[in-house]
């Protein structure tokens, strides 16, 4: 079981939750499970080809999965996944 932290802009798609608990052996499996449970996230996280959108970063235990094994990165139980889209607000 891994915790997936949901950024504020995506919380409305998961019923307002700050985090959800998912099961999966890889980052891709966790994200696929997340999208299956909350279909509203699909277009926000993935391109039509099923790739992660480039404006969304995913971190596994604080490390960017792009520099690990991407969506194929193995996930250990109790690892934490953080989804982080860019934020612009400053004023």
């Amino acid at each position, binding site marked *: 079981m891994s915790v997936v932290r949901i950024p*504020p*802009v*995506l919380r409305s798609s998961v019923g307002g939750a700050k985090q959800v608990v998912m099961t999966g052996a890889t980052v891709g499996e966790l994200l696929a499970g997340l999208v299956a449970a909350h279909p509203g996230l699909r277009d926000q996280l993935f391109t039509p080809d099923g790739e992660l959108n*480039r404006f969304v970063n995913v971190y596994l235990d*604080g490390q960017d999965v792009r520099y690990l094994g991407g969506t194929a990165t193995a996930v250990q139980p109790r690892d934490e996944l953080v989804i982080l*889209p*860019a934020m*612009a607000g*400053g004023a």
Partner: protein
Amino acid sequence: MPKSYADLLKEARSQVREVSPAEADAVRERGEAVLVDVRETSEWEQGHVPGALHLSKSYIEQDIEAAIADRARPIVLYCAGGVRSLFAAQTLSEMGYTDVASMAGGFQRWKTQGLPWTVPPVLSAEQKQRYSRHLLIPEVGIEGQAKLLDSKVLFIGAGGLGAPAMLYLAAAGVGTIGVVDFDVVDLSNLQRQVIHTNDRIGDKKVDSARRTIQALNPDIKVVGHEEMLVADNVERIIAGYDVIVDGTDTFETRYLLNDAAVVAGIPVVHASVFRFEGQLTVFKPFDGPCYRCLYPTPPPPELAPGCSVAGVLGVVPGIMGLLQANEAIKLLLQIGDSLAGRLLLFDALDATFSELKLRRDPACPVCSEGAIEARRIGRPLAVATMGADAPFVLGGPGIGTAS
């Protein structure tokens, strides 16, 4: 039996090892000993050995332990002529310092032998009082304060993030504060933009910020850039600044600023806020990632609304803005560990901070080795633009108007 001055001096000479200025310089150069200037402040201000510590003989018993905790560390004391340092060396020996020498002939002989010396920055009496809490911190001190007074920080936006950051950097004595903003003060700004006031609604933000800063600290020069940051002016506006504090509300400006700051080699202290949460990092060119390494393309507007759409708890940009001010000061003074390569996340509801590791993208079109080389030969790499070619076209206002 009472002792005369001559007796005391003779006794000190017999107990304390003396070194010549040349020997002192050699151990200083090799970093083998710390040189301590025991003269009065007025003498120190006329010039001193570069890198020496200043601990006046009048207070040396009080101050030495805080300045040099290791009693085995080699120390060379000097004064003007080599007498006061002999007596101070005796005192340190009594306190258990085991390797203390006195420089024969003092600073006078040092200078006549043509050895290097430097004149410390001098603050006015008023500045010494104003910045006294900084001067007490060894990592800042007079030299650090002088560096701040000589520094130039550019704020992109005098809004939620810029307002608190600007106030504190002005208070800290950052000598030149540039403000890019073309907006006017609106009533809805005052919930968080603490540099503006109720009686300035409708005034230009640049003017309002200037008035508050100058009322707080007349040392500060405020340079207003009352224009929207665009491709045609960004290079000119950021030129000459030491650090940029990014407090904008749009992706267009953030990418524009990033690309120009990387080329100009100016670090950008970046923050953004959304409701109860904030993100913060430092983009230090070529020493950590840039904004495009982190987010190569902008999100669609519905995924990244600004504060005017999504709302923000007023204290969140306050907290993030002050963390930006903290990073700016560290960069200016070259102290501590900057947030370059780390993204700090703040959650106000949980009252937690967490950290993510950021990396330079080896294929970044702006800061990678390939991008540097491409610019050198005059053929810069293409970047994802925010125009018609971008996956998502972001319309909307520039700096400050989306507040």
